[in-house]
């Protein structure tokens, strides 16, 4: 398992990772969220031993970062990697397989698995962004990693490729692998990861399951009530809230007040045409946890 203990990293005299502690168990999928510049890439590079740690400790199944044992157990998908354009996907992946001690046929299997089999012989210069990203994913699956560190793995992927990607992540975890993946795209992670860690300006501001984060944030449920023609004013006079477009009124309430509010809406059938209930999404949660504390509502 991956164990991060009070890790600190300075850059240009500024702490870019501030006392972060985090563990990822075997078989667990953890999403690392944060704005651009929050320190996600830096944290992953510290785990890999590519960047020197200025304080605290990291252990990868008991091995220090960057040690040959740790590297043997770890797969990495960098945020930006340009494979050599003049070679084919197959040539690059076979080379990387040799470096990981995997057989060349394994590289071919993985190309198949990420959906690049048909383009395996073509030069990478002819690949789209999504195809290059899938090649990157294929190399991260080489050598049966126990720990996968994926830096914004779904950027550049279309929705179907994203779905397929999370299938692969699910398989890695089901096989006992620990997965830590960073992202600033959020909604896609619902039900795809076991735990969510949010970094803000180098600090870990949340680290829990989605359910617990929802509960502790106490974010309001939103009700969108569509009025019958020309009755929006009356509806607002009865319920309060605010107009969101010509005919609808939006109301916010805490989860435990929801039923009471619903029955009062129910009592106005002559004004109400339809209701949408919008629970707090990952985006709301993310905005809540990644905003500075003093501005939280």
């Amino acid at each position, binding site marked *: 398992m991956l164990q991060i203990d009070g890790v600190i990293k300075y850059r240009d005299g500024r702490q870019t990772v501030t006392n972060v502690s985090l563990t990822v168990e075997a078989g667990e999928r953890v999403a690392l969220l944060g704005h651009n510049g929050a320190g996600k890439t830096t944290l992953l590079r510290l785990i890999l031993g590519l960047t020197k740690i200025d304080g605290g400790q990291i252990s990868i199944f008991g091995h220090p970062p960057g040690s040959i044992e740790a*590297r043997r157990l*770890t797969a990495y998908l960098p945020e930006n*990697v340009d*494979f050599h354009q003049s070679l084919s996907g197959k040539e690059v992946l076979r080379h990387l397989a040799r*470096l990981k001690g995997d057989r060349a046929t394994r590289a071919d299997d993985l190309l198949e698995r990420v959906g690049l089999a048909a383009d395996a012989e073509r030069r990478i210069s002819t690949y789209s962004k999504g195809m290059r990203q899938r090649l990157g994913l294929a190399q991260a699956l080489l050598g049966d990693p126990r720990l996968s560190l994926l830096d914004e793995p779904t950027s550049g992927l279309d929705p179907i490729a994203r779905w397929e990607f999370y299938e692969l992540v699910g398989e890695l975890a089901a096989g006992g692998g620990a997965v830590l993946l960073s992202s600033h795209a959020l909604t896609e992670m619902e039900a795809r990861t076991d735990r969510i860690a949010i970094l803000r300006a180098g600090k870990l501001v949340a680290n829990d399951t989605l359910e617990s984060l929802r509960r502790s944030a106490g974010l309001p449920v939103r009700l969108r009530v569509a009025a019958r023609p020309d009755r929006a004013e009356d509806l607002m006079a009865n319920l309060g809230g605010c107009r969101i477009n010509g005919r609808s009124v939006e109301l916010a309430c805490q989860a435990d007040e929801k039923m009471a509010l619903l029955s009062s809406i129910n009592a106005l059938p002559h004004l109400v045409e339809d209701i949408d209930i919008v629970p707090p999404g990952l985006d709301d949660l993310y905005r809540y946890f990644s905003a500075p504390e003093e501005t939280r509502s």
Partner: protein
Amino acid sequence: MTAAFAFARYDLLLAHRNLWAAISIGLMTLFAIVLTISGSAPAGALGVDRLTVTVTSLTTLSIYLVPLIALLLSFDAIAGERDRGMLALILSYPVSSASFLIGKFLAHLITLAVALAIGFGIAGILSVALDGASPASWKALFVLYGSAVLLGATFLGFGYAISSLVRHPGAAAGLVIGLWLIGIVLYDLALLGALVADDGGFFTSKLFPWLLVINPADAFRLVNLGGSTSTLLASGLLVPQDALPALMPQMALLLWPPVIGYIAWRLFRRIEP
């Protein structure tokens, strides 16, 4: 070591695919043919065979061309991989960082050695076909080949050192061209200027021979054009034969690749991918 060979194989494929190999071979071949055919018309008039004349002109050519090709093969090796993010990926793999550099070096040295073998081979065969060759001139051709490979290895090392020093491949390209200009062209001119100013004093007799031999390109020239009494260099520099211990140029040429290779490795180890 397996990893080093895997890297070498990959980089040979890359050199082939990016046409660096073809360009190196083409350049060497072109110049070898031109020099051999244009080599002073009736070679017999000088009392030496055509191959001897060819070796002399190939030496002068190699001083400029071999370092240039070596630097062009090597300048991108580290800065370029770093820029593409490949270095970070590779260093997360369970292989030693030395094997990465050794693999690049093997691939580039093989590319260079093959280009030189083809160029010099064609020059040798062409000379013999035109005029015939003595055993001594064949020997000179082989010495030329071996020393050219060592010269190439040295400048590959310089290329890797520079490539580790700077972050951007463009900057590395500029620096290797600067090194080539200063080390190969301006260095000799500066020495010549100092010789003229010194007019046979301490600098000329004591310092100058050493300054000449520590420059790998000049050591290469001394190895291949070193006569029995004195050496007339193409740039007009004269070295009294007894000013240096025996085999000093050969030693210098043999020592440069491991020394610069070690420096390049230390610089490479320092960088954060």
